[in-house]
């Protein structure tokens, strides 16, 4: 999308980080989800996962292009995706965790898309008009992701003994990482101050209200809270991130600037 309208200066470094973090979430979850391509249990799900991954990567392209312009250092979407090192990525740790199995894959998309929906909804009225435009576009896609993954969470959780066991194991594994969504950050403060977007910490109650009924319907029990807080959005990632980047960035690291 190289010819998109030019404009805007960032209101603060926090503003840039806020947009970059959203772009990184979409990029890294898109990369993970795309790993299913050619490996899904059935053809229909192969296409569904590939389509959701494409939506996320499309959102990442718009967000990183925008973040690069706000930053004003001449970095485009490719430079940001392929030439940054691990600590410069600001995605939530949840997005980088391995897929493991179909249950964890779907549960992660269900948890994350419900968070994204809330965020896109708030960003429709962002003072950053480009971000508001990206939100208006992406919210329609996130809605389908939430619907599809939600259907699967219920089907798996309220399915066979084996599918329930796997869905519960996926929830037990993923749930502690969701606390990271709502940790206050300086970038959030700056972005909220300028009317760019909400403090993520203010979305917690709405997110839980969206997620709890789904998990109940899926007969899944919420794990007990733990003090652990992952820190991906501050650039401190899990051991899985380096491996993901090694694969995703390989070609551009070997041949910087390579084009089709």
């Amino acid at each position, binding site marked *: *999308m190289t010819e998109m309208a030019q404009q805007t200066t960032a209101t603060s470094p926090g503003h840039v980080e806020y947009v970059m973090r959203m772009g990184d979430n979409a990029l890294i979850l898109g990369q993970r989800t795309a790993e299913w391509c050619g490996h899904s249990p059935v053809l*229909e799900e192969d296409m569904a996962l590939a*389509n959701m991954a494409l939506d996320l990567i499309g959102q990442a392209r718009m967000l990183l292009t925008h973040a690069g312009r706000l930053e004003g250092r001449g970095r485009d979407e490719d430079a940001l995706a392929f030439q940054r090192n691990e600590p410069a990525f600001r995605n939530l740790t949840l997005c980088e965790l391995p897929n493991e199995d179909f249950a964890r894959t779907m549960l992660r998309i269900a948890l994350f898309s419900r968070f994204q929906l809330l965020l896109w909804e708030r960003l429709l009225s962002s003072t950053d008009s480009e971000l508001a435009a990206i939100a208006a576009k992406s919210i329609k896609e996130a809605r389908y992701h939430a619907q599809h993954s939600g259907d699967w969470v*219920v089907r798996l959780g309220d399915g066979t003994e084996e599918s329930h066991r796997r869905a519960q194991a996926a929830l037990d594994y993923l749930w502690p990482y969701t606390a990271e969504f709502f940790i206050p950050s300086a970038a959030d403060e700056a972005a909220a101050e300028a009317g760019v977007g909400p403090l993520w910490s203010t979305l917690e109650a709405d997110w839980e209200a969206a997620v709890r009924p789904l998990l109940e319907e899926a007969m899944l029990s919420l794990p007990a809270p733990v003090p652990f807080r992952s820190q991906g959005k501050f650039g401190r990632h899990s051991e899985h991130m380096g491996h993901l980047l090694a694969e995703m960035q390989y070609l551009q690291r070997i041949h910087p600037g390579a084009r089709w």
Partner: protein
Amino acid sequence: MTMLTEAQVWKALEAVPDPEIPVISVAELGIVREVQVQGGAVRVVVTPTYSGCPATEVIGEDIRAALVRAGATTVDLEWRLAPPWTTDWIGEAASEKLRAYGIAPPGERAASATQPLRFVSRRIACPKCGSNETERVSEFGSTACKALYRCRACLEPFDYFKPI
């Protein structure tokens, strides 16, 4: 020097097929938002369908090529996100073309954009036999913009153009 009219530009755009659904044109798809012509210089504003639609760049190249063939000396193509594309911009005639091609045209959009719909199986008429006895196989079909359905009457699978 060539002088193009706006009508000629639209006519050229009506001959540019969507790369993935060649039975309708990019103009009929509703993604061409503005056309401005000054002498031979043409400016076109296009909006993408889905963020990750792989056809986006091909569409841009096809539009350029078609306008140059129609006599444009320069083509200025802008991709604009807002307002976001909606299937409501696919007209009645184009909807019929989709149906004849075997794709059920998009129905009405749901009222709320943020409330995730769950287990809502819309009754979509089979584009082949017209029966309403259809079921959704998957929310995602052969492309991001389509869902996969099956007709229980004629037993044929078909694509449904999802309303967004």
